[in-house]
């Protein structure tokens, strides 16, 4: 049950910066993306726009800077509809950061890209260079002023795209999944930049810890409607409501709490873990082994330098490191796509050119972007592609397709078109395409990137059940903790650390791996855990609810507010260590049994 009548958590005087009333939008293919959105945004608001994939978030923000026309309803920016000259002005005042920075960097050099917006704003050429330098300096890229955009790393591109907006000095900044695919170091820089931004911030993200750090207000969209308009603290403190919208990320908090060993404990645990590893290592053959392995690209870049590591059967290893550390190159070498210098063994056999070409029969890889490995017309064809290349008989191919789809919870999707699936479904389909080949070694590259928390939780559940030896490449310490026993830290093509995951997590907590520490996230997690503190209390409290009630002869039902005294489970905080607790001062819409209450006489005012 939702409270659709709540006011925005931040009260403001004067006109709203954005005033949206009953906004509806239908795409040309008939899909109704927005179904009567009502929203007011004040200048200086910091809003997290949340919701499952397909809930209408992107469609809504495309309206906010006039990329989509208003079909029905009203949208006012600073009191004016977004058409004609006000629309052109609004576009120069509202910055929209796209999810893929390659969409946003369309000029030959960073200088041209950053100056594009200000030139459209009418900034003179004389004042351009200092402005561009200032914007790039703010994101730490001043030294790359004249570098071509296609030569930048992903993290640099993302920051450059933000610099393009900052140079325009926008009054409103709209960000679409700003942290997607960023390594922790780059994410920290981004958070720092956004913390200091003083305008209105609207952020579409599935990363609720990031949203919690930067936003005060949470607007939850569901099927094209605003279902909640909370303060961010209220949203994260209410797991049932988050779960209802596929946003519940509490499993991450629980996971972190379980895995967060104090440094001393980790230090004690580490030698034991190493001992177990050593015994296991002696007992089983390495599935894959690299010794003094190096790889250099044709342009001379040394991507891997003296890598030595072994992976035993049944083991799960995480490979972590900043963007550009050499993780993807290493995976390509393990798959036999690149051939470096040094020893490369698979199941104890030294790999020559010919054997390396046949590695695909034994090693399966799930790419970061499922679009890179989905190209068939139906899910069944997609999953059957690998087994067919293996030369399996028709019946076996069909059996494997059905089994793989069942395993990733896509049973019955055989005839669906991969291009039309949701992000989470496409990711699971990509995993099925690999599982159908029954690989001995499974490589997962950022498996949860771009998924909403619900999709993430489901995927995690599936991955936990897979029996294969695994290599996981990720920037996410939670996934490392959940899915692996050992961690390899790469830095500039070299193995910086190779130790148990417990030790890696201890390093994370102590922030001794500066490039990989997401310090703000641990703080946010702690705060959210406190906010989600809930147990039963008896007290007089006021709340807002809907049920059948009586006014004399009249019996009807509508949301109304009044006080009760009874036991209930409620999210609350305690004042220091005392047993006293406090609720949010705002009336909360929630349901629980009220014995006899419905029969009692009610006296509240009704609107006509």
């Amino acid at each position: 049950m939702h409270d659709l009548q709540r006011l925005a958590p931040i009260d403001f005087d004067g006109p709203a910066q954005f005033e949206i009333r009953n906004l509806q939008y239908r795409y040309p293919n008939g899909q109704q993306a927005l179904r009567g959105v009502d929203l007011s945004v004040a200048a200086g608001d910091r809003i997290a726009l949340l919701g499952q994939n397909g809930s209408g978030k992107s469609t809504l923000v495309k309206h906010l800077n006039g990329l989509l026309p208003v079909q029905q309803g009203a949208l006012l920016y600073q009191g004016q509809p977004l058409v004609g000259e006000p629309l052109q002005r609004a576009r120069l005042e509202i910055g929209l950061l796209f999810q893929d920075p390659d969409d946003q960097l369309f000029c030959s050099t960073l200088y041209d890209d950053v100056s594009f917006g200000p030139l459209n704003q009418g900034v003179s050429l004389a004042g351009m260079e200092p402005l561009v330098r200032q914007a790039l300096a703010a994101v730490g890229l001043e030294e790359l002023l004249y570098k071509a955009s296609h030569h930048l790393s992903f993290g640099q591109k993302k920051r450059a795209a933000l610099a393009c907006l900052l140079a325009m000095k926008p009054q409103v900044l709209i960000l679409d999944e700003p942290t997607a695919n960023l390594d922790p170091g780059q994410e920290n820089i981004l958070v720092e930049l956004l913390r200091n931004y003083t305008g209105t911030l609207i952020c579409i993200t599935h990363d609720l810890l990031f949203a919690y750090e930067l936003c005060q207000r949470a607007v939850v969209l569901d099927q094209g409607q605003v279902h909640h308009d909370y303060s961010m603290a209220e949203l994260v403190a209410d797991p049932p409501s988050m779960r209802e919208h596929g946003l519940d990320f509490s499993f991450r908090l629980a996971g972190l709490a379980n895995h967060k060993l104090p440094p001393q404990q980790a230090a004690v645990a580490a030698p034991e873990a190493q001992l177990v590893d050593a015994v296991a290592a002696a007992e089983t053959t390495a599935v894959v082994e690299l010794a003094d392995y190096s790889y250099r690209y044709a342009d001379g870049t040394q991507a891997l330098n003296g890598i030595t590591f072994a992976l035993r059967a049944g083991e799960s290893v995480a490979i972590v490191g900043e963007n550009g550390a050499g993780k993807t190159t290493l995976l390509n070498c393990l798959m036999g796509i690149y051939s470096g210098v040094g020893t490369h063994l698979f199941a104890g056999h030294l790999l020559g050119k010919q054997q390396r070409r046949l590695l695909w029969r034994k090693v399966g890889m799930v790419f970061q972007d499922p679009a890179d490995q989905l190209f068939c017309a139906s899910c069944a064809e997609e999953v059957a592609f690998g087994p067919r290349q293996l030369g399996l008989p028709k019946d076996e191919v069909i059996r494997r397709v059905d089994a793989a789809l069942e395993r990733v919870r896509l049973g019955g999707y055989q005839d669906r078109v991969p291009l039309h699936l949701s992000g989470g479904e496409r990711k699971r389909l990509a995993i099925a395409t690999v599982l159908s080949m029954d690989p001995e070694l499974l490589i997962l590259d950022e498996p949860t990137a771009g998924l909403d928390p619900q999709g993430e939780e489901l995927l995690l559940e599936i991955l936990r059940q897979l029996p294969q030896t695994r290599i996981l490449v990720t920037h996410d310490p939670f996934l490392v903790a959940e899915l692996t026993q050992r961690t390899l830290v790469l830095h500039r093509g070299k193995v910086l650390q190779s130790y148990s995951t417990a030790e890696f997590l201890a390093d994370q907590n102590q922030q001794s791996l500066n490039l990989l520490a997401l310090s703000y996230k641990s703080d946010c997690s702690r705060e959210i855990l406190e906010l989600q503190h809930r147990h039963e209390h008896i007290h007089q409290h006021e709340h807002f609810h809907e049920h059948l009630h009586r006014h004399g002869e009249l019996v009807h039902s509508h949301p109304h507010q009044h006080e009760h005294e009874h036991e209930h489970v409620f999210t609350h905080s305690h004042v220091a260590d005392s047993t006293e607790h406090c609720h949010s001062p705002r009336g909360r819409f929630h349901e629980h049994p009220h014995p006899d209450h419905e029969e009692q006489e009610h006296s509240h005012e009704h609107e006509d």
Partner: protein
Amino acid sequence: MVEGQIIQLPLVLLLAALLLLALLSLLAVKVLKSAFVGKQTAQKEPDWSVPVVDADAEGTSLFHRWDVRFKLVALLGFAFLVVATRSPEAAMIALLLSFSTVLVAQQPVYRSLKRLLAMSGFLGMFLLVMPLTVVTHPEDILLVFSGLEFLPFNLRGLQLALAIVGKACAVALLMEPLLATASLARTVEGLTRLGVPEKVAQMILLAHRYIFVFLEEARRMKTGMQVRGFKPRTSTETLQVMGNFLGMLFVRSFERTHRVYAAMQSRGYRGRFPAPFYFKVTAGDWLHAGVWLLLGIGLLVFDRLGAA
């Protein structure tokens, strides 16, 4: 068939000549390759905080300082005049001029030579095929090797091939000073000021930017197919898979164009790219352009008078 002047030569001379040619080509490729690899490994990250190929750079070359519009008109005009010549002598002079231009423009020689190397296979075919296939005139000199009397080697054909190769190399060498001494954006803006439609100019700029993105997408998709065991064969299945691959690439590219256009609009794009530079014409620009056009005309006159 018209008979020319025939010179009989022993077959061993032909074999020796071919061997020498092959060795020289091999040596040239090896030297270029080692020079190129040496450059790559020694390469450090350039200082991107200063414009490396911009007309406003501190670069002292004449070509860096030259107004891009004059540069385009003069060098392209010169290239047309070079192409209009007929004799191998004129082509060789043009080649010499172009090579000097590369040096004066402070462009890396190895890059220009690499460009020529890329063309060498195609041009090599002219040198081999034209002397054997050109129509024989009475005044032609034909080399006939003993045992290969059915295959006369026409020296006029060789001259024609040399003229074509010389002109092609001269024009190819001019491309570095023409295009690499100013940023692409500036060169394209120069083209626009010379009357090239803005839409075409924008398409050049965007194509240059996104060709790398599409290539990277195609490479990743190819890897995705490779790791699932795909090997191109001459079969209908391969055709079907390649069709899917190209279709998917097209869909992704199409979706990206929509997103790029939206990104441009959201930063105030109203149909034209703003040009973030000034154009200032100096007397030097006129003079420089005049010299190049006069050089071209001089070359053509020499060619025609020499031929007469």
